[in-house]
Protein backbone atom coordinates (compact mmCIF):
# COMPACT_ATOMS: atom_id res chain seq x y z
CA UNK A 1 0.00 0.00 0.00
CA UNK A 2 1.47 3.24 -1.17
CA UNK A 3 0.19 5.12 1.84
CA UNK A 4 1.76 2.88 4.46
CA UNK A 5 5.02 2.92 2.53
CA UNK A 6 5.11 6.73 2.53
CA UNK A 7 4.32 6.85 6.22
CA UNK A 8 7.10 4.35 6.84
CA UNK A 9 9.61 6.39 4.84
CA UNK A 10 8.71 9.65 6.57
CA UNK A 11 8.83 8.05 10.01
CA UNK A 12 12.17 6.35 9.44
CA UNK A 13 13.64 9.50 7.95
CA UNK A 14 12.59 11.58 10.94
CA UNK A 15 13.65 9.01 13.51
CA UNK A 16 17.07 8.22 12.11
CA UNK A 17 18.16 11.68 11.08
CA UNK A 18 17.04 13.39 14.28
CA UNK A 19 18.55 10.68 16.49
CA UNK A 20 21.84 10.79 14.58
CA UNK A 21 22.20 14.55 14.69
CA UNK A 22 21.16 14.59 18.31
CA UNK A 23 23.72 11.90 19.11
CA UNK A 24 26.52 13.99 17.69
CA UNK A 25 25.37 17.16 19.43
CA UNK A 26 24.66 15.36 22.70
CA UNK A 27 28.03 13.66 22.68
CA UNK A 28 29.78 17.00 22.28
CA UNK A 29 27.72 18.54 25.04
CA UNK A 30 28.38 15.57 27.32
CA UNK A 31 32.06 15.78 26.53
CA UNK A 32 32.06 19.46 27.42
CA UNK A 33 30.18 18.85 30.64
CA UNK A 34 32.60 16.18 31.80
CA UNK A 35 35.79 17.72 30.48
CA UNK A 36 35.23 21.18 31.90
CA UNK A 37 33.23 19.84 34.86
CA UNK A 38 30.26 22.07 33.99
CA UNK A 39 27.78 20.85 36.54
CA UNK A 40 25.37 23.70 35.89
CA UNK A 41 25.21 22.79 32.21
CA UNK A 42 24.26 19.26 33.18
CA UNK A 43 21.57 20.56 35.53
CA UNK A 44 20.34 22.80 32.72
CA UNK A 45 19.73 19.83 30.45
CA UNK A 46 18.37 17.74 33.27
CA UNK A 47 15.70 20.35 33.93
CA UNK A 48 14.51 20.12 30.34
CA UNK A 49 14.31 16.36 30.40
CA UNK A 50 10.57 16.19 30.77
CA UNK A 51 9.68 19.21 28.73
CA UNK A 52 6.43 18.46 26.93
CA UNK A 53 7.06 17.99 23.25
CA UNK A 54 4.14 20.22 22.35
CA UNK A 55 5.85 23.16 24.03
CA UNK A 56 8.84 22.77 21.80
CA UNK A 57 6.44 22.37 18.88
CA UNK A 58 4.74 25.61 19.82
CA UNK A 59 8.03 27.48 20.11
CA UNK A 60 9.20 26.23 16.76
CA UNK A 61 5.88 27.15 15.21
CA UNK A 62 6.18 30.71 16.48
CA UNK A 63 9.73 31.06 15.22
CA UNK A 64 9.38 29.42 11.83
CA UNK A 65 5.99 30.60 10.67
CA UNK A 66 5.96 33.17 7.93
CA UNK A 67 5.68 36.14 10.22
CA UNK A 68 8.23 34.65 12.61
CA UNK A 69 11.93 35.40 12.96
CA UNK A 70 12.98 32.51 10.76
CA UNK A 71 9.87 32.51 8.64
CA UNK A 72 11.80 33.34 5.49
CA UNK A 73 13.26 29.85 5.53
CA UNK A 74 9.85 28.39 4.66
CA UNK A 75 10.53 25.33 6.76
CA UNK A 76 7.16 25.00 8.45
CA UNK A 77 5.06 21.99 7.47
CA UNK A 78 8.00 20.12 6.00
CA UNK A 79 9.71 17.00 7.28
CA UNK A 80 12.85 19.07 7.85
CA UNK A 81 11.24 21.11 10.59
CA UNK A 82 9.99 17.98 12.34
CA UNK A 83 13.54 16.67 12.30
CA UNK A 84 14.78 19.93 13.80
CA UNK A 85 12.12 19.79 16.48
CA UNK A 86 12.68 16.17 17.42
CA UNK A 87 16.44 16.66 17.51
CA UNK A 88 16.03 19.49 20.00
CA UNK A 89 13.52 17.45 21.98
CA UNK A 90 15.77 14.47 22.60
CA UNK A 91 19.03 16.27 23.30
CA UNK A 92 18.41 16.54 27.08
CA UNK A 93 17.51 12.87 27.20
CA UNK A 94 20.62 11.82 25.33
CA UNK A 95 22.93 14.12 27.27
CA UNK A 96 21.63 12.73 30.55
CA UNK A 97 22.04 9.21 29.32
CA UNK A 98 25.52 9.66 27.87
CA UNK A 99 26.90 11.56 30.83
CA UNK A 100 25.63 8.99 33.29
CA UNK A 101 26.88 6.18 31.11
CA UNK A 102 30.41 7.39 30.60
CA UNK A 103 31.22 9.52 33.62
CA UNK A 104 32.88 6.69 35.52
CA UNK A 105 35.48 5.98 32.90
CA UNK A 106 35.69 9.38 31.25
CA UNK A 107 38.49 10.82 33.38
CA UNK A 108 40.61 7.67 33.21
CA UNK A 109 40.45 7.62 29.45
CA UNK A 110 41.19 11.31 29.38
CA UNK A 111 44.29 10.80 31.50
CA UNK A 112 45.58 7.98 29.34
CA UNK A 113 45.22 10.28 26.40
CA UNK A 114 46.99 13.10 28.27
CA UNK A 115 49.84 10.91 29.46
CA UNK A 116 50.46 9.67 25.94
CA UNK A 117 50.21 13.16 24.45
CA UNK A 118 47.14 12.57 22.41
CA UNK A 119 45.60 15.72 20.99
CA UNK A 120 41.95 16.73 21.12
CA UNK A 121 41.03 14.73 18.04
CA UNK A 122 42.76 11.59 19.27
CA UNK A 123 41.02 11.92 22.58
CA UNK A 124 37.69 12.21 20.82
CA UNK A 125 38.30 9.13 18.68
CA UNK A 126 39.50 7.18 21.67
CA UNK A 127 36.40 8.05 23.61
CA UNK A 128 34.08 7.24 20.73
CA UNK A 129 35.70 3.83 20.51
CA UNK A 130 35.60 3.23 24.24
CA UNK A 131 32.03 4.39 24.69
CA UNK A 132 30.64 2.96 21.50
CA UNK A 133 28.09 0.88 23.36
CA UNK A 134 26.80 3.74 25.47
CA UNK A 135 26.55 6.01 22.45
CA UNK A 136 24.69 3.39 20.47
CA UNK A 137 22.34 2.74 23.36
CA UNK A 138 21.54 6.40 23.67
CA UNK A 139 20.91 6.48 19.93
CA UNK A 140 18.25 3.81 20.32
CA UNK A 141 16.74 5.59 23.28
CA UNK A 142 16.47 8.70 21.14
CA UNK A 143 14.84 6.69 18.38
CA UNK A 144 12.33 5.28 20.81
CA UNK A 145 11.37 8.68 22.09
CA UNK A 146 10.95 10.17 18.63
CA UNK A 147 9.05 7.18 17.35
CA UNK A 148 5.97 7.73 19.42
CA UNK A 149 6.10 11.50 19.52
CA UNK A 150 2.93 13.06 18.18
CA UNK A 151 2.27 16.58 19.41
CA UNK A 152 5.31 18.28 17.98
CA UNK A 153 5.03 16.43 14.69
CA UNK A 154 1.39 17.51 14.33
CA UNK A 155 1.98 21.15 15.20
CA UNK A 156 5.00 21.84 13.03
CA UNK A 157 4.42 19.19 10.40
CA UNK A 158 0.73 19.54 9.67
CA UNK A 159 0.29 15.82 9.06
CA UNK A 160 0.60 16.29 5.31
CA UNK A 161 0.11 13.16 3.26
CA UNK A 162 3.35 11.84 1.85
CA UNK A 163 5.38 14.61 3.45
CA UNK A 164 4.95 14.93 7.20
CA UNK A 165 2.63 12.11 8.11
CA UNK A 166 4.33 9.72 10.53
CA UNK A 167 3.06 6.55 12.16
CA UNK A 168 1.89 8.40 15.21
CA UNK A 169 0.24 11.30 13.40
CA UNK A 170 -1.49 8.86 11.05
CA UNK A 171 -3.01 7.09 14.00
CA UNK A 172 -4.38 10.42 15.19
CA UNK A 173 -5.86 11.10 11.78
CA UNK A 174 -7.40 7.67 11.26
CA UNK A 175 -8.90 7.72 14.72
CA UNK A 176 -10.34 11.19 14.18
CA UNK A 177 -11.80 10.04 10.91
CA UNK A 178 -13.33 7.03 12.53
CA UNK A 179 -11.27 4.58 10.49
CA UNK A 180 -10.44 2.45 13.46
CA UNK A 181 -9.18 -0.53 11.45
CA UNK A 182 -6.62 1.56 9.61
CA UNK A 183 -5.63 3.05 12.91
CA UNK A 184 -5.02 -0.37 14.38
CA UNK A 185 -2.95 -1.42 11.37
CA UNK A 186 -0.73 1.61 11.75
CA UNK A 187 -0.59 0.97 15.48
CA UNK A 188 0.58 -2.60 15.05
CA UNK A 189 3.33 -1.51 12.68
CA UNK A 190 4.42 1.20 15.08
CA UNK A 191 4.48 -1.31 17.89
CA UNK A 192 6.52 -3.76 15.82
CA UNK A 193 9.11 -1.13 15.05
CA UNK A 194 9.35 0.09 18.61
CA UNK A 195 9.86 -3.53 19.63
CA UNK A 196 12.72 -3.90 17.17
CA UNK A 197 14.34 -0.76 18.50
CA UNK A 198 13.88 -1.92 22.05
CA UNK A 199 15.59 -5.19 21.22
CA UNK A 200 18.47 -3.41 19.49
CA UNK A 201 18.91 -1.28 22.58
CA UNK A 202 18.74 -4.21 24.93
CA UNK A 203 21.19 -6.42 23.08
CA UNK A 204 23.59 -3.57 22.87
CA UNK A 205 23.49 -2.51 26.47
CA UNK A 206 25.78 -3.64 29.24
CA UNK A 207 23.12 -5.66 30.98
CA UNK A 208 23.05 -8.18 28.16
CA UNK A 209 26.72 -8.89 28.56
CA UNK A 210 26.07 -10.55 31.89
CA UNK A 211 24.05 -13.35 30.36
Amino acid at each position, binding site marked *: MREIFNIFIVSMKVIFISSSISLIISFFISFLILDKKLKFLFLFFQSFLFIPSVLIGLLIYIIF*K*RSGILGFLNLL*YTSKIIIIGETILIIPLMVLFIVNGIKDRFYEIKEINEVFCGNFLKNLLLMIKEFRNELLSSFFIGCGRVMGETGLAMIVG*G*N*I*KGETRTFSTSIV*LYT*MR*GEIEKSIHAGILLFAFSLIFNLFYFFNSKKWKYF
Partner: protein
Amino acid sequence: MLKEILTLIILTTTSLYDTGLLDKICKEFEKEYKCKVKIISVGSGMAFKLGKNGEGDLLFVHEVEGEERFIKEGYGEKRIPVFKNEFVLCGPKDDKYKISSSLDIFDAFKKIYEKKLTFISRDDKSGTDKKEKDIWEKIKLYPEGKKWYIQTGTGMIESLRIAEEKNGYILSDISTFLSHKKEFKNIKILLRDKKNLENYYSIIPISKKRFPYVNNQLAEKFIEFVKSKKVKDIVENFKFDGEKIFEIIE
Protein backbone atom coordinates in the same frame (compact mmCIF):
# COMPACT_ATOMS: atom_id res chain seq x y z
CA MET B 1 -29.19 7.39 37.41
CA LEU B 2 -30.18 10.91 38.20
CA LYS B 3 -26.90 12.19 36.82
CA GLU B 4 -27.57 10.42 33.54
CA ILE B 5 -30.97 11.99 33.19
CA LEU B 6 -29.45 15.37 33.72
CA THR B 7 -26.63 14.98 31.21
CA LEU B 8 -26.82 15.54 27.48
CA ILE B 9 -24.02 14.22 25.29
CA ILE B 10 -23.64 16.02 21.98
CA LEU B 11 -21.51 14.57 19.20
CA THR B 12 -20.43 17.36 16.93
CA THR B 13 -17.79 18.30 14.39
CA THR B 14 -14.80 20.50 15.01
CA SER B 15 -15.85 23.08 12.45
CA LEU B 16 -19.05 23.83 14.32
CA TYR B 17 -17.53 23.58 17.75
CA ASP B 18 -14.50 25.74 17.05
CA THR B 19 -16.63 28.75 16.21
CA GLY B 20 -17.69 28.90 19.81
CA LEU B 21 -21.38 29.10 18.99
CA LEU B 22 -22.17 25.71 20.42
CA ASP B 23 -20.60 26.55 23.75
CA LYS B 24 -22.70 29.67 23.95
CA ILE B 25 -25.92 27.84 23.17
CA CYS B 26 -25.17 24.98 25.55
CA LYS B 27 -24.37 27.33 28.41
CA GLU B 28 -27.83 28.86 28.13
CA PHE B 29 -29.36 25.41 27.76
CA GLU B 30 -27.64 24.21 30.93
CA LYS B 31 -28.98 27.21 32.83
CA GLU B 32 -32.51 26.92 31.61
CA TYR B 33 -32.93 23.18 31.94
CA LYS B 34 -30.68 22.77 34.97
CA CYS B 35 -28.60 20.04 33.39
CA LYS B 36 -25.08 19.37 32.16
CA VAL B 37 -24.03 19.23 28.53
CA LYS B 38 -21.03 17.24 27.37
CA ILE B 39 -19.76 18.16 23.94
CA ILE B 40 -17.55 15.73 22.04
CA SER B 41 -15.97 17.48 19.10
CA VAL B 42 -14.32 15.29 16.47
CA GLY B 43 -14.17 14.94 12.70
CA SER B 44 -17.45 14.17 10.93
CA GLY B 45 -16.42 10.61 10.21
CA MET B 46 -15.67 9.96 13.84
CA ALA B 47 -18.85 11.68 14.97
CA PHE B 48 -20.91 9.30 12.86
CA LYS B 49 -18.95 6.35 14.14
CA LEU B 50 -19.49 7.34 17.74
CA GLY B 51 -23.16 7.83 16.97
CA LYS B 52 -23.39 4.35 15.50
CA ASN B 53 -22.04 3.02 18.77
CA GLY B 54 -24.57 4.94 20.78
CA GLU B 55 -21.87 7.00 22.44
CA GLY B 56 -23.95 10.15 22.52
CA ASP B 57 -27.50 11.42 22.68
CA LEU B 58 -27.54 13.46 19.51
CA LEU B 59 -25.48 14.36 16.47
CA PHE B 60 -24.92 17.95 15.46
CA VAL B 61 -23.15 17.76 12.13
CA HIS B 62 -23.07 19.12 8.63
CA GLU B 63 -22.79 16.31 6.13
CA VAL B 64 -26.06 15.59 4.31
CA GLU B 65 -25.13 12.26 2.71
CA GLY B 66 -23.72 10.87 5.91
CA GLU B 67 -26.75 12.03 7.84
CA GLU B 68 -29.19 10.41 5.43
CA ARG B 69 -27.27 7.16 5.55
CA PHE B 70 -27.25 7.32 9.33
CA ILE B 71 -31.01 7.55 9.42
CA LYS B 72 -31.47 4.96 6.69
CA GLU B 73 -29.39 2.49 8.68
CA GLY B 74 -31.63 3.08 11.63
CA TYR B 75 -29.27 4.86 13.99
CA GLY B 76 -31.28 8.03 14.00
CA GLU B 77 -34.92 8.77 13.47
CA LYS B 78 -35.05 12.21 12.01
CA ARG B 79 -32.92 15.02 10.76
CA ILE B 80 -33.64 18.59 11.76
CA PRO B 81 -31.65 21.28 9.90
CA VAL B 82 -31.19 24.22 12.24
CA PHE B 83 -28.54 26.56 10.89
CA LYS B 84 -26.70 27.15 7.71
CA ASN B 85 -23.59 28.98 6.76
CA GLU B 86 -21.38 28.96 3.76
CA PHE B 87 -18.11 27.60 2.60
CA VAL B 88 -15.74 29.98 0.97
CA LEU B 89 -12.70 29.59 -1.26
CA CYS B 90 -9.67 31.22 0.28
CA GLY B 91 -6.39 31.88 -1.45
CA PRO B 92 -3.41 34.19 -1.93
CA LYS B 93 -4.22 37.88 -1.52
CA ASP B 94 -2.65 38.92 -4.80
CA ASP B 95 -4.87 36.49 -6.70
CA LYS B 96 -2.43 36.31 -9.58
CA TYR B 97 -4.54 33.85 -11.44
CA LYS B 98 -7.77 35.79 -11.11
CA ILE B 99 -9.55 33.00 -9.29
CA SER B 100 -11.87 35.52 -7.71
CA SER B 101 -13.36 36.32 -11.05
CA SER B 102 -14.47 32.73 -11.65
CA LEU B 103 -18.12 32.16 -12.54
CA ASP B 104 -18.69 29.74 -9.73
CA ILE B 105 -16.86 27.35 -7.50
CA PHE B 106 -16.66 24.69 -10.19
CA ASP B 107 -15.02 27.12 -12.55
CA ALA B 108 -12.56 28.11 -9.85
CA PHE B 109 -11.64 24.51 -9.11
CA LYS B 110 -11.15 23.84 -12.80
CA LYS B 111 -8.76 26.76 -13.07
CA ILE B 112 -6.82 25.56 -10.03
CA TYR B 113 -6.53 22.08 -11.49
CA GLU B 114 -5.41 23.30 -14.91
CA LYS B 115 -2.89 25.77 -13.57
CA LYS B 116 -1.63 23.23 -11.01
CA LEU B 117 -1.99 25.73 -8.19
CA THR B 118 -1.21 24.71 -4.63
CA PHE B 119 -4.42 23.44 -3.08
CA ILE B 120 -4.86 22.42 0.52
CA SER B 121 -7.28 19.62 1.27
CA ARG B 122 -8.36 18.46 4.74
CA ASP B 123 -8.36 14.76 3.92
CA ASP B 124 -10.01 13.97 7.24
CA LYS B 125 -13.48 13.01 6.00
CA SER B 126 -14.94 16.05 7.71
CA GLY B 127 -17.94 17.94 6.39
CA THR B 128 -15.72 20.50 4.70
CA ASP B 129 -13.56 17.78 3.25
CA LYS B 130 -16.59 16.00 1.87
CA LYS B 131 -17.87 19.19 0.24
CA GLU B 132 -14.54 19.75 -1.42
CA LYS B 133 -14.41 16.19 -2.70
CA ASP B 134 -17.98 16.53 -4.01
CA ILE B 135 -16.95 19.53 -6.10
CA TRP B 136 -14.04 17.66 -7.69
CA GLU B 137 -16.38 14.76 -8.34
CA LYS B 138 -18.91 17.00 -10.03
CA ILE B 139 -16.37 18.40 -12.46
CA LYS B 140 -14.83 14.95 -12.88
CA LEU B 141 -11.32 16.00 -11.96
CA TYR B 142 -9.22 13.91 -9.58
CA PRO B 143 -6.37 15.80 -7.99
CA GLU B 144 -5.32 13.11 -5.56
CA GLY B 145 -1.66 12.26 -5.90
CA LYS B 146 -0.80 15.42 -7.77
CA LYS B 147 2.16 17.34 -6.44
CA TRP B 148 0.25 20.58 -5.98
CA TYR B 149 -2.57 18.91 -4.07
CA ILE B 150 -1.57 18.91 -0.41
CA GLN B 151 -3.52 16.64 1.86
CA THR B 152 -3.10 17.62 5.45
CA GLY B 153 -4.59 15.41 8.09
CA THR B 154 -5.53 18.25 10.34
CA GLY B 155 -8.44 20.37 11.41
CA MET B 156 -9.78 23.48 9.69
CA ILE B 157 -7.71 26.09 11.41
CA GLU B 158 -4.46 24.13 11.07
CA SER B 159 -5.19 23.55 7.39
CA LEU B 160 -5.83 27.27 6.94
CA ARG B 161 -2.48 27.97 8.53
CA ILE B 162 -0.84 25.59 6.13
CA ALA B 163 -2.53 27.42 3.26
CA GLU B 164 -1.20 30.65 4.71
CA GLU B 165 2.34 29.25 4.87
CA LYS B 166 2.32 27.71 1.46
CA ASN B 167 0.34 30.43 -0.31
CA GLY B 168 -2.28 27.94 -1.34
CA TYR B 169 -6.00 27.73 -2.04
CA ILE B 170 -8.38 26.11 0.38
CA LEU B 171 -12.05 25.54 0.91
CA SER B 172 -13.08 26.63 4.36
CA ASP B 173 -16.22 27.30 6.30
CA ILE B 174 -16.64 31.03 6.66
CA SER B 175 -16.84 31.01 10.45
CA THR B 176 -13.44 29.47 11.02
CA PHE B 177 -11.77 31.85 8.59
CA LEU B 178 -13.40 35.00 9.93
CA SER B 179 -12.81 34.11 13.54
CA HIS B 180 -9.05 33.92 12.88
CA LYS B 181 -8.88 36.58 10.19
CA LYS B 182 -6.21 38.59 12.00
CA GLU B 183 -3.76 35.72 11.67
CA PHE B 184 -3.85 35.57 7.94
CA LYS B 185 -1.62 37.98 6.14
CA ASN B 186 -1.23 36.01 2.93
CA ILE B 187 -4.64 34.65 2.20
CA LYS B 188 -8.12 36.05 2.06
CA ILE B 189 -11.60 35.04 0.87
CA LEU B 190 -11.46 34.95 -2.91
CA LEU B 191 -14.78 33.46 -3.90
CA ARG B 192 -18.20 33.09 -2.40
CA ASP B 193 -20.79 30.95 -4.08
CA LYS B 194 -23.90 30.96 -1.94
CA LYS B 195 -25.73 28.71 -4.34
CA ASN B 196 -23.22 25.87 -4.42
CA LEU B 197 -21.40 26.31 -1.16
CA GLU B 198 -24.16 26.20 1.36
CA ASN B 199 -23.47 24.31 4.50
CA TYR B 200 -26.34 22.94 6.55
CA TYR B 201 -26.01 22.03 10.19
CA SER B 202 -28.53 19.49 11.37
CA ILE B 203 -29.38 17.78 14.62
CA ILE B 204 -30.09 14.07 14.62
CA PRO B 205 -31.28 12.54 17.87
CA ILE B 206 -29.87 9.05 18.28
CA SER B 207 -32.42 6.31 18.03
CA LYS B 208 -33.88 5.24 21.34
CA LYS B 209 -35.08 2.06 19.70
CA ARG B 210 -31.51 1.14 18.88
CA PHE B 211 -29.96 2.42 22.07
CA PRO B 212 -32.50 2.40 24.88
CA TYR B 213 -30.25 4.26 27.32
CA VAL B 214 -29.85 7.45 25.28
CA ASN B 215 -31.27 10.57 26.79
CA ASN B 216 -33.93 11.09 24.16
CA GLN B 217 -35.99 13.34 26.42
CA LEU B 218 -33.24 15.87 26.90
CA ALA B 219 -32.26 15.63 23.22
CA GLU B 220 -35.80 16.64 22.16
CA LYS B 221 -35.71 19.50 24.64
CA PHE B 222 -32.45 20.62 23.10
CA ILE B 223 -33.95 20.72 19.63
CA GLU B 224 -36.83 22.76 20.99
CA PHE B 225 -34.38 25.10 22.63
CA VAL B 226 -32.33 25.59 19.49
CA LYS B 227 -35.48 26.61 17.64
CA SER B 228 -36.48 29.07 20.36
CA LYS B 229 -36.24 32.85 20.22
CA LYS B 230 -33.41 32.89 22.75
CA VAL B 231 -31.10 30.96 20.45
CA LYS B 232 -32.34 32.95 17.47
CA ASP B 233 -31.06 36.06 19.21
CA ILE B 234 -27.73 34.45 20.00
CA VAL B 235 -27.26 33.43 16.37
CA GLU B 236 -28.30 36.81 14.98
CA ASN B 237 -25.73 38.43 17.20
CA PHE B 238 -23.00 35.94 16.49
CA LYS B 239 -20.75 37.99 14.27
CA PHE B 240 -17.17 37.91 13.19
CA ASP B 241 -15.65 40.91 11.53
CA GLY B 242 -19.05 42.53 11.53
CA GLU B 243 -20.58 39.72 9.54
CA LYS B 244 -23.27 37.36 10.71
CA ILE B 245 -21.97 33.84 10.34
CA PHE B 246 -24.94 31.58 10.75
CA GLU B 247 -28.42 31.81 9.44
CA ILE B 248 -31.38 30.21 11.16
CA ILE B 249 -33.44 27.77 9.15
CA GLU B 250 -37.13 28.06 9.91
